[in-house]
Each structure stands twice: as C-alpha cells, then as structure tokens.
C-alpha cells in the first residue's frame, strides 16, 4: 500500500475559506462577501507509526484542517495524499476505501456513539460495512477489536449509557480501529476526560502506535497533553502552521512568538513556576 520508507500522509497547500454572513446593509450595497480563511496554505507530512500533535487556540483552524483531511469539509485548494493516493480527487468506492484507511475519533464520546446500539453492534457495523476479514464471525471480531483498546469482551453487550466517559472514548477508538486504518485522527479526543482517565487514554494512543504501527494526528488545545504523546508538533495560529518540529525542540526552544505565548501561559501544576501573561 504505502511505498517503503515514504510518508503515509502528504498534505500540501491545503486552504479552506468560509464566507461570513453579510449584514443587510452589505447585501444591499452588493459588496464582496468578507472571507474568513480558516485554513491557510497548510503543508505537512506524516510518517507511518508517528504521532503528530496539532496544537493551537480555539479558532486557529486545527479542527477544520483535520476535517479537510478526510473531506468532512471540502478544502478549496491543495492536495492530500494517503499512501500516494489522491484523497481529494477520489470519489465513490475509491473515496470510501481511502476513508477506511484514515479514521477519526471525535471530542465528545457522548455524541459520537449511537445510544441505541450496543458496543458490539457499533463495532461490527463498521467492520462489515468495510468487509473486514474476520467480521463474518461477529463475536470473535468484536472481542478482538475490544482487546486492542484494553476492554474485556463483556463490553460488547453494553450500551453507551452504561459506560463512563473514558470507556466510551475507548469504544469510539475501537470502532475506528475495527476497519484497520493506517492513520487515526484524534480531534480533542481526551479533552473532555478527567486527568486520571486522560492519562490512561494517552497511554492507549501510544500503545496503538507501538503495537499496530498506526500513525496518529493528535489534535489538542492543551500543550501538555501533546507533550505526553507526540513525536512532532505543529502549532497553528489563524489558519497557518506557525511552527513545526520535534516536540522536545519546539517546547524546549520555541521560535515563533505565538508558540512562546502559548507555552508561557500554560498553567503549571508546580506553584513555584508561574505562568506569564502576555497580551
């Protein structure tokens, strides 16, 4: 599938603009609609088995970028190549297959699972839609997928309402893994969880990378969370990637002013390391 040694995902020049709603006066005067460039000429590559953190404040464009990659939002220009295949030119069965190879986990595990389906049904549906090998034997397939996220097979019969937030998020990850993706996009996947549960989920993402070799784009507004898991980090501000590099390098010696401000404002649990306020 992927050329040996090459990146699993190549993103080049991706741009997405939204036109803002006009006021009555603007519409009467037939002025040009104001355009908000949510994602502005973004390029990066992702290696197999790599975790790339995508950081930035709210409105920086990180979620829009993540959505552009699997075409939940159609980018205006640019290219997205998954294992060499052009994601933006694909349609029909080809696009479906590409989307299988790049899966997304969302922030809110309460909204991303169907409340009327059991955990087993949700996982099996994903596997059967994409005709995954082994999905003929439902019970074994589900048990195998649950094991990857460290849940016991007994969870198959439970419904989302019986699960805690952390367990729901594991199920959401399991559902994404059920179709053997090469790339996993986790959009604020641990942001809604308590820290004690968050720590377990972060470990799970690192385990998935190590054991399955899946590459992960880890979107988070919390820099410390990215510090815990990411090999490289891209910092976004006003739609652009303002800094990209090894996590330790970027966090240890940030070069961009916005990255510096984000790091300085980060609340430190050690009361003797005070945050700085920059305006």
């Amino acid at each position, binding site marked *: 599938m992927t050329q040996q040694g090459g990146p699993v995902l190549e993103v080049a020049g991706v741009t997405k603009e939204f036109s803002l709603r006009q006021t009555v006066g603007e519409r009467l005067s037939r002025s040009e609609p104001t355009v908000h460039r949510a994602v502005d000429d973004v390029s990066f590559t992702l290696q197999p088995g790599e975790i790339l953190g995508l950081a930035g*404040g*709210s409105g920086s464009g990180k979620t829009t970028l993540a959505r552009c990659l699997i075409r939940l939002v159609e980018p205006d220009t640019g290219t997205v190549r998954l294992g060499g295949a052009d994601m933006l030119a694909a349609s029909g069965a080809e696009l479906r297959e590409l989307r299988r190879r790049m899966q997304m986990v969302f922030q809110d595990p309460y909204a991303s699972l169907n409340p009327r389906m059991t955990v087993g049904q949700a996982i099996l549906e994903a596997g059967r839609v994409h005709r995954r090998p082994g999905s003929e034997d439902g019970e074994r397939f589900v048990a195998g997928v649950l094991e990857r996220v460290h849940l016991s097979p007994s969870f198959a019969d439970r419904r989302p309402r019986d699960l*805690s*937030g952390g367990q729901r998020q594991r199920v959401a990850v399991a559902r994404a893994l059920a179709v053997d993706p090469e790339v996993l996009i986790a959009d604020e996947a641990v942001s809604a969880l*308590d*820290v*004690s*549960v*968050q*720590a*377990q989920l*972060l*470990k799970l993402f*690192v385990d998935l990378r*190590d054991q399955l070799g899946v590459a992960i784009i880890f979107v988070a*507004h*919390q*820099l*410390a*969370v990215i*510090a*815990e*898991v*990411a090999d490289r980090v891209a910092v976004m501000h006003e739609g652009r990637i303002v800094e990209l590099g*090894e*996590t*330790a*390098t*970027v*966090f*240890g010696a940030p070069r961009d002013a916005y990255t510096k*401000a*984000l*790091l*300085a*404002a*980060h*609340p*430190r*649990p*050690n*009361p*003797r390391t*005070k*945050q*700085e*306020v*920059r*305006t």
Partner: protein
Amino acid sequence: MSTTVGPLLSIADVSIAFGNEHEPLCAVRSVSLEVEAGEVVGLVGESGSGKSLTCRSVMRLVAQPGRVSNGSIQFDGRDVLAMSPAELRAFRAGDVGMIYQDPFSSLNPVYRIGDQLVETLRANRGLRKAEARSEAAMLLERVGIPDPQRRLLSYPHELSGGMRQRVMIALATASRPRLLIADEPTTALDVTTQAQILELLLEMREQLGMAILLVSHDFGVIAQVCDRVAVMYGGHIVETGAVGAIYDNPQHPYTRALLESVPELEAAGRDRSEQPRPGIPGRPPELGEELPGCVFAPRCGYARPTCREVPMTLVPVGPAQASACPVQPFRQQEARA
C-alpha cells in the same frame, strides 16, 4: 473590614443529599472548609466529586431536589442556611459574587451589556439610572475592557469568550463583595485568555480585598492562583493544605495519584517506555453508593482491610496540612521527586 473574629466563610460538616428522606443519595458528605478574609482557596477534584455543589451551597443555590441535609454554613458569623428570603437576597446581592464556567449562557443574549450592568446596580445598590450608567462604565474599565462607553452598547454575542467572562466578573464584583465564588471560570477559555482572567482575579483581590473560592478540575489553574487548596473525591475532602506543600508532599494517595496524572510540558521528548503516567485504575464511586470506610479504598494501592471500615476524618499531617488517609503511607517518606 470583618465585624467578627474568625473566618469569613465557614462551612462545617455540610452534607448535600438528593433523593427522598428515606433513601437519601449523598453527593457531598461532611465537608468542612474555611476561607479567611482576602484568602484565595482552591477546590480541586474530578467530575462528580462534589466541588461545584459545595460552592453552590454557600449561595444556597443547590437545585431541587438537592438539599443541604446536614451541617452549617456561616458567613461572617451569620447563619446562611437560616436566612429569610429577604436576608438571602441582600446576602447574594451584596456579600458574595459568583461566576460560572460558561460565560456564553450566563449573560442574557437579548439585552445590551450596559443594560444588564445597570439593572444589577440599580437592584443591588439602589443607584439611580444616570449614576448606574457611569458606575457600569467604571466597572468595565476596572476589569480591563477597552473603550467601556462603547462596550456598554454591545450585545453579549459581539464579545469574545474572554471579554464575556470579564463582563461576568464586573457584574459579580459590582457591589464589592467580600467573597467571590468562581466555579471553573476559565475552563471554556483558551490558555492565553485563561492566564489573563486568572491575573485579573488576583488583581481584583488586591484592589477590593475580597476572598476567592476557586473551583477547578485543573491543578495547574489552582497552583497558579491559590494560597490553600482542598482536594475533593467522591463527595469528601480528602486533603487540605498550602498549595506548595500539597504539590511537593501530598499526604493522601488520591492527591498523589491525581498529581501524577496531570500532563506536563516537561514530558516532551521523554522516552515513552520509561515511565508512562499510570492514571488511576477503576472508577469513582457513584451517587448513592454507600462505602462505610474510605471512599478511595477500592482504587487505592495502599489500602488495608481496616480502610473499608474506619470512617473518614481529616487528621493533621503537618503545619496547616490535613489528610483523611488512615494509613498515612507517605508520612515518613520524602517529598515527590
């Protein structure tokens, strides 16, 4: 400023229950907490630990069918739970201010910022319209909102999240309260905005000499602004002490596990196989789950059989530090590395 000696706020042995008289479901159990005048006290804990309910009980804002089923709350020597409706109104209007997590739903979307401030000032401080108007501009200026005269005419949706939270702080401190209760005030904001709002809260404390009770799930936020902290778990306060002492040398296994779960920037580039953050196995107790002994015992690595029998009480473990752990496994140990 205080008319009596003793703490400004004293929560003693407070329990908050849901459900009916015969089968009460206790969400907060025998919580005691004191806030001195001008002090910033943090209440930290994970979701469902009872921290929000505890601070809401101070304003008597626990929603039905929840109720304070036991204990007493004293503000400056006055019994809050015994206040008549008129006294309670005056107490909420003048003595205590409160800000919430969501600055998006705390303001009325169909009224201008200025009208909401003026309404509050006229009702709470009995100002006349013109006076209230200039006072409102002054309040906005005090919370760092540029061009306050123009901002008075803005609707809430025209302001950013940080600006809205500043307006909320202006509203809550309009009558110069002696205590501000801030329930997750920065959780919905970006880190850069968060730092500004926390800075503003500390400035307001300096200027007005008010005490702050700050609720947060984020120990980082607590560490940055609080003098003292109380750690809540499963409806109980499991440990209290100075922020520095708790960070260096937590004396309750839950506090230690919580601190060790907090992600840190310093983790960048660390060998992942080396020491992954363990998190805390298991799950917190559910509402209505009756545990006779320590609430944390089922998840605790240091638990002994007696832990499930001995009722929880805070025991002094150092100067101004108290822990509810009967085992005290860290008592003779060194501070955290």
